[in-house]
């Protein structure tokens, strides 16, 4: 019988074979699957549900805070309209006036006659005044003042019939808020951008810290695992809180790679050679024994992936072209996954992807973050930045049952772009 026929005979008979399975296997599997199915529905565990709820609830005021131009909104005081006289038509065209520094966005009504500038062709525009929650829209007053300008160009057209709305009615209504239609970048030091988005990539060097376990284990683990590099990317929103202080929050991804190489004894072969010599009719036995040890080497590239939420406070200073910032904060690791092989305390190469080994956590905890950044303005609204940083991990990557503690600290540089979202904030000079 040829080897092919022989193989086919076995394949045909064996391939379709079935063996009865004990019911206990399904019972054990079922209890495991119930847990897995729950995990599938709630991939981050139940405790994330209230955290996520709090996060989502807190998002609303956060978004409101970030998107409302509270500080840019100008407040119209009723007394500002007292100079207007009902039933008196005022043709107002280009007028140059001195704006009060404390109320740069306040609508200003100025008689053009005072300026002496010839009146160009009349025009009127639409403007919306938000007033105690309701909008008063009239084809009456057009006021658009470039923020930050000391010398303001005002285009006004106020008709006689509409004046009471501004003057007398305003006396009864203490506060009206005008939302600026367009937020322009500050052209002097009194206004500065207040909301940015930053995107960056981050090559990093990883410093591994091992503790716990025996000294011999730590030595062997260090020998078996060589750090290669880390690479990250992220996106952050930053909001200016004062002239120099910013708060930043976002999400970032970090991937660390290491080489794992472990040589293990895999078997011993002993070869004994017995040589018989006949010397003068006497048999002489010469025995030589050779022992060969076989080794098996495991080579893998291990990967540690994580998704984190940075919350960072930053002190920033500089001019329009160059800015420098010192930052510090915490980074909450929400998800991490290790894959590849690692050495366990029994000196065996075990899979890190297999959760049953239970060596590495899937959510690590907190890290401390410190950085220095340089920003260079390259285009309107756009800056590039380089931000060397150090990230110190507070929580262990490993679980309690791993038998050792492992942390990974990162020394890297964020290289990215910061884009000014157009919101402006008045400086507190």
């Amino acid at each position, binding site marked *: *019988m040829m080897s092919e026929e022989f193989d086919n005979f076995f394949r045909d*008979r064996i391939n379709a074979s079935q063996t009865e399975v004990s019911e206990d296997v*399904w019972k054990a599997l079922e209890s495991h699957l119930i847990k897995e199915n729950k995990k599938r529905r709630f991939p981050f565990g139940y405790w994330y549900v209230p955290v996520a709820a709090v996060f989502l609830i807190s998002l609303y005021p956060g978004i409101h805070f970030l998107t409302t131009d509270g500080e840019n909104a100008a407040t119209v005081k009723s007394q500002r309209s007292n100079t207007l006289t009902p039933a008196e038509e005022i043709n107002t065209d280009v007028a140059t006036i001195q704006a009060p520094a404390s109320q740069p966005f306040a609508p200003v009504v100025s008689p053009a006659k005072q300026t002496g500038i010839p009146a160009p062709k009349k025009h009127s525009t639409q403007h919306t005044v938000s007033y105690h929650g309701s909008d008063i829209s009239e084809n009456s007053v057009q006021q658009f003042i470039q923020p930050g300008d000391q010398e303001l160009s005002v285009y006004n057209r106020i008709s006689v019939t509409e004046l009471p709305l501004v003057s007398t009615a305003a006396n009864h209504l203490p506060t009206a808020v005008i939302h600026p239609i367009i937020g322009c970048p500050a052209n002097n030091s009194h206004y500065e951008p207040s909301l940015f988005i930053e995107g960056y990539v981050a090559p990093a060097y990883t410093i591994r810290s091992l503790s716990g376990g025996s000294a011999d284990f730590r030595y062997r683990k260090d020998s078996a695992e060589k750090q290669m590099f880390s690479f990250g990317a992220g996106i952050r929103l930053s909001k200016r809180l004062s002239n120099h202080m910013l708060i930043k929050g976002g999400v970032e991804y970090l991937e660390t790679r290491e080489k794992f190489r472990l040589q293990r004894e895999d078997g011993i072969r002993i070869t004994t050679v017995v040589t018989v010599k006949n010397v003068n009719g006497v048999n002489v036995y010469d025995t030589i024994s050779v022992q060969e040890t076989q080794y098996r080497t495991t080579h893998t590239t291990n990967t540690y992936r994580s998704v984190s939420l940075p919350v960072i406070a930053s002190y920033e200073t500089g001019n329009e072209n160059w800015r420098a910032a010192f930052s510090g904060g915490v980074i909450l690791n929400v998800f991490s996954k290790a894959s590849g092989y690692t050495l366990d305390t029994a000196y065996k190469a075990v899979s890190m992807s297999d959760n049953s080994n239970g060596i590495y956590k899937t959510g690590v905890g907190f890290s401390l973050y410190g950085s220095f950044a340089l920003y260079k303005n390259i285009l309107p609204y756009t800056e590039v930045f380089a931000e060397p940083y150090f990230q110190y991990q507070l929580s262990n990557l490993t679980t309690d049952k791993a038998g050792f503690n492992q942390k990974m600290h990162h020394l890297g540089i964020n290289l990215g772009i910061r884009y000014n979202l157009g919101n402006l904030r008045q400086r507190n000079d």
Partner: protein
Amino acid sequence: MTEKEIIQGCIEGDIQTQRLLFNTFAPKMMSVCLRYIGNRSEAEDVLQDGFILVFRHIEKFKFNGSFEGWIRRIMVNTALKFLQSKKVNFVEIDAVQATFIHGEPSVLSELNTEELMKMIDALPDGYKIVFNLYVIEGYSHNEIAKLIHISPGTSRSQLIKARRLLQKQITERQKLAV
């Protein structure tokens, strides 16, 4: 229920559908596990671990090939991983010309699957793994080399030895039958 519906139910984590899938494939896969791991209790552990992986990664099945083949590969890999934790000797032998003894077809046909399984199980671990991977699963020597970290030459020599031992067992049966 179609195969696609079963897979979809398992992706959604429906325990009844998972039971259905288990009942459908477990007997065949138990047979696969037993071929690699002779001990029934250990084979059941491997079967359980294999099915955990099947359910965990079932959404990765792309319908490109046979679903049973996909499950079988997971079982084989799980069994190999289990065996890796044990010391399995792959002793290098010199190139041996296999001498196949001509067995009577009647003797072969008398052998049932259980007896064949027993014969395979009686092989040394290294021979058994290579024989199963090459002959039953259809892996090439290069693929086997990568799977169990041996050289393709070692895989070939293990297969030759395995065939010779199986032939020897069949011949002994033949003699007994006479």
